[in-house]
């Protein structure tokens, strides 16, 4: 019984470690080079797959004007609602617009909104959070309370409320996402800085009389960045999902501009949903694949940034 348990308790990881030890004893292992985190991430099959899918989608969106044969906005009433064919890879929509071209061009806006919002939220969150965590003070307490207010709302409710006030446009949407999203990165950065603050090297830098700003942003922040990068990746995925949901509801990016959510908006019509699958199924799958790839990358980053999260 105990032997069986011992064997049953061995995971894939144990086997891997054994193989590494054997290789080491045989003198086959070379000395590792390069960044440990990078090597670790490249060793994770799922995040490599994620990276490949991510790059493929981003590249084709970037190169959309050169890849596509059709203008995404061009209405062609002679070829309306055509199913996928060699001429139109994903078919055409109700106005005869080429859906493949719309998906690629829509990706530019959707990815821009997702990535831009995540970077904007991160910039504010990191800037405020690192200094707040390091120095504290009344401003820090005020920001902390403010972030609590923002985070208490169910995110989509707050986003919709702000949309109803400021109106719909790409830049408004990014601003709203930044306003509702900075809180989590702020709190995370702040928490990391609070623990780093107690380390000896920080005491030493202080004793040398270095300016606070230099200690905070140059010496402490890089040590806090690992989990923050993971957070940025995951919030990119979240914002892309939110843009898609909002535009699907007709409350995100204005309908004239093609985005992934706006293309899916056509599926609000039960007739389209039931009979013209090519209008919404491919673009929905592209969103899912893209978000999945970002999540895989985020997961790989997490493992490489924080070994204690393994398994």
């Amino acid at each position: 019984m105990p032997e069986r348990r011992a064997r049953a308790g061995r995971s894939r990881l144990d086997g891997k470690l054994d193989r590494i030890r054997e290789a080491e004893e045989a003198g086959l292992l070379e000395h590792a080079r390069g960044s440990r985190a990078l090597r670790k991430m490249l060793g994770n099959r799922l995040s490599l797959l994620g990276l490949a899918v991510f790059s493929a989608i981003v590249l084709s969106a970037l190169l959309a004007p050169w890849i596509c044969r059709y203008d995404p906005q061009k209405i062609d009433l002679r070829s309306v609602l055509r199913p996928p064919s060699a001429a139109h890879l994903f078919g055409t929509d109700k106005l005869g617009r080429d859906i493949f071209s719309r998906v690629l061009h829509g990706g530019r806006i959707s990815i821009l909104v997702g990535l831009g919002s995540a970077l904007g939220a991160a910039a504010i969150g990191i800037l405020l959070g690192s200094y707040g965590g390091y120095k504290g003070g009344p401003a820090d307490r005020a920001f902390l309370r403010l972030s609590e207010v923002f985070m208490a709302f169910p995110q989509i409710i707050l986003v919709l409320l702000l949309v109803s006030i400021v109106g719909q446009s790409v830049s408004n949407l990014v601003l709203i996402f930044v306003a509702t999203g900075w809180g989590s990165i702020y709190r995370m950065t702040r928490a990391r800085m609070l623990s780093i603050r107690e380390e000896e090297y920080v005491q030493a830098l202080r004793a040398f009389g270095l300016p606070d700003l230099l200690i905070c942003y140059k010496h402490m922040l890089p040590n806090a960045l690992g989990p923050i990068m993971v957070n940025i990746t995951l919030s990119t995925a979240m914002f892309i999902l939110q843009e898609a949901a909002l535009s699907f509801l007709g409350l995100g990016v204005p309908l004239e501009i093609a985005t992934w959510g706006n293309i899916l908006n056509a599926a609000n019509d039960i007739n389209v949903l039931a009979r013209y699958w090519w209008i919404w199924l491919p673009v929905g799958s592209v969103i899912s694949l893209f978000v999945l790839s970002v999540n895989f990358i985020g997961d790989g980053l997490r493992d490489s940034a924080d070994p204690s999260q393994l398994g």
Partner: protein
Amino acid sequence: MIAYTLRRFLALAPMMLLMTFLVFLGLELTPGDAVSFIAGPEAMANMDGSQLAALRESLGLDDPFLARYFRWLGGVLRGDFGYSLTSGVPIARIVAERLPATLELSAAALLVSTLLGSALGLASALNRGKALDQALTVAGMIGVSVPEFFFGLVSILVFSIELKWLPVGGRTRPEYLGLWDRLPHLVLPALVLGVSMTAGVMRYARASMLDALGKDFMRTARSKGLPEARVDLVHGFRAALAPIAVLIGFRLPMLIGGSVVIEQIFQWPGVGSEFLAAVRGQNYPLVMTIALLSVLAVLAASFLVDLATAALDPRVKLS
């Protein structure tokens, strides 16, 4: 425990007050005449300019800001939220009419995600590192990556349109009202909302179970010679359950957000679809009121979660 409850409440109350203040500020700053918002449409229709001015005076709309805030807050505490700008119906009545449908959907989705999430999390933890665990982890990642509404659309296509097993949308057929008759309408939206929240529960249940599996009492149970299944399921899973119970409370914001989208797709006549209509129509009093109610519900839920955690684990009270 009483001291702890009081302490948590003293942290909760100012936050709730701050929320009401912010929402009132929003109401004041958004367009829309406060007279029409307070007086109701019937009274508005038969008035000229001087009467309106007198009404403003008598309603206290020329009072200082803080005085107006406290009068509004008093109304909110008595359940008086004013009137919808578009229909003139009292907001309290709109919400009261719509809330049962949303609660029904949320409760069903909570049930689905709790059962499915903890069962899958348990299976994943007991098979740690094996194929099943890895498959479930990847499935969980897919679960958080597919947009809820897209998942909903695909399920409508498959189960309602192609297989014709379930109705496409709505909450009931006109002639039936009992829960049993409504059940076919509830199944699909509840499953879609529930399954889309399952991944989070599963990940949490797995971590919680793995934690319990490493505890000393598990070894004690085994050394007593208890069967493996009993050790895992009775001793381990029960210890893992407490944090999972907490997670149910924290799912409320996801539930509220998710139900907005799901109600739209399935034409479920709940608060979420009313909220969307209000956002589209720039019906600010209704938008603000529903947002206020949702944030108060989330704050109250996290308060209850704190109390439940403290009741389950006495160490929490000391921190």
